[in-house]
């Protein structure tokens, strides 16, 4: 498995990363190097094996439907690079 320039672009779009033109070939090479290593799993015999998503053997725990938290508006908006007194702000989105 290896990827080409077009596939790199698709991955970068999904991952929302900016790849400068001069880095395209270097990044493609480095990803292909890792993919080459990952390839190794293809040889493994895994038919009938149940995928393991989690090492934890238990079941999910839940909480009661109770409000336990209060507003953090000021603290939250203070963390943002760009906000007014009520909202986070982003460049205009056209739907």
């Amino acid at each position, binding site marked *: 498995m290896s990827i080409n320039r077009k*596939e790199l672009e698709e991955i970068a779009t999904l991952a929302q990363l900016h790849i400068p033109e001069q880095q395209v070939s270097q990044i493609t090479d480095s990803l292909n190097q890792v*993919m080459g290593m990952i390839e190794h799993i293809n040889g493994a015999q895994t038919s009938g094996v149940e995928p*393991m998503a989690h*090492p934890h053997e238990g079941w*999910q725990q839940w909480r009661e439907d109770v409000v336990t938290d209060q507003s953090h508006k000021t603290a939250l908006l203070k963390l*943002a690079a760009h906000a007014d007194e009520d909202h986070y702000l982003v460049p205009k989105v056209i739907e």
Partner: protein
Amino acid sequence: MINLSIRQMADMLTTKQISVQELNGVYHDRARQFNDRTNALISVYEELCAREVMQAQDLLGKAAHPLAGIPLIHKDLFCTRGQTTTCGSNMLEHFIPPYDATVVSRLSAAGMITHGKANMDEFAMGSSNEHSAYGPVANPWDLSRVPGGSSGGSAAAVAARMTPVATGTDTGGSIRQPAALCGITGIKPSYGRVSRYGMVAFASSLDQGGVLAPAADDCGLVLSAMSGHDPLDSTSARRPGWAWQKPESADLTGVKVGVIQDWVDGLQDEAIKQLTLQAIETLKAQGASLIDIHLPHADLAVSAYYVLAPAECSSNLSRFDGVRFGHQTAQAQNLEDLYRRSRSEGFGEEVKRRIMIGTWALSSGYYDAYYLKAQKIRRLISDDFRQAFDQCHVLACPVSPELAFKHGEKADGVSMYQADQFTIPASLAGLPCLSMPIGHAAGLPVGLQLIGRYYDEQSILAVADQYQQLTRHHLQVPEAFL
């Protein structure tokens, strides 16, 4: 003073041979003094937190509180309320969380006093601590060499005795490998033993918080205080609390130690191999019986891990988009531009590479062939361990196939990933595991890994403590830091 165990320090504090201020003053000075050389810490707190000092004094006046007044450094991916938490990334250079990680609040409640935050590979991705936006960390045993990673700052800080204990996190070896390379003890507990709340996620199904300290006994005391169910983390185990019990003697009679012989035999570095064999012989001499163990699927672990961990990371790191917190680019033309530039400026190369690998592995057309396949291999490896533990109580094996290498010696990429070959399998299975120092080769420390049954931290810590009752490797301090 700097080679006192936590128990000894606690004893001196309780009997008022030393005050909380005096003890913490020593480490405060050492942290400041040695950080120029090691770069082990991203932040060194100017002053001790008055509230923490008061709480420690309060606790010391009451019943037994083994951790009250003991100095502590947190890896900089544990959120600390009101204190910058960078994760070794430019992305979070100015991020001050409004909440504490559960690990942080529990250790604080136990009376420990936080001195600063440890350097690390960015978002815990790396095995050399060279992938930090705040510069590489020097190994106290040889400043030209790496301390390992990703908890390299924590390991170096303990090795240089800038702190008697530090927290770390381990996803594929990030506590054990730096502990080995820095000549200290480091434990990654069972998955679910320690709450992940407030611990910035790399790969959620693998990440676990743990402890680095000179001795297994120190690790056991601190890990006990960190452990236990947390209602804020639904993957934390709902089990009765666990408290470390230090063994009374060094006698290992009746303990069955499984040796992963083909890993030992395969070691290219003859010195590491010899030290590993010696350490295993010591366990035998202490009364342990040795059993030869083979893990048939372990050679697939690194490849499977580099599918699963990046896949989870690609999703976990999507929240860093520059909008609500973290770095935002100064030159966005539109929303997509804001996302792309903020993320590309904020993340380092290794993080971006893993995000892209993970994005690819989850994308349509590759999901079954890579992600699902890797999960199946994870099951096979987990089953290998299950069978191994039918025959033995703990497993012994190498931690790292090599000694601490020189800064810049390993070009980016796959060669570094292979360095995790002995630590990744236990991570995939979620098992408790530790590294303990077993001697030096060419002046550099070597570690031995002990892996336990699920939720049996007690056995691996006990074996390590019993070994340390007879040996002094864990008490070695680099000359320059005495």
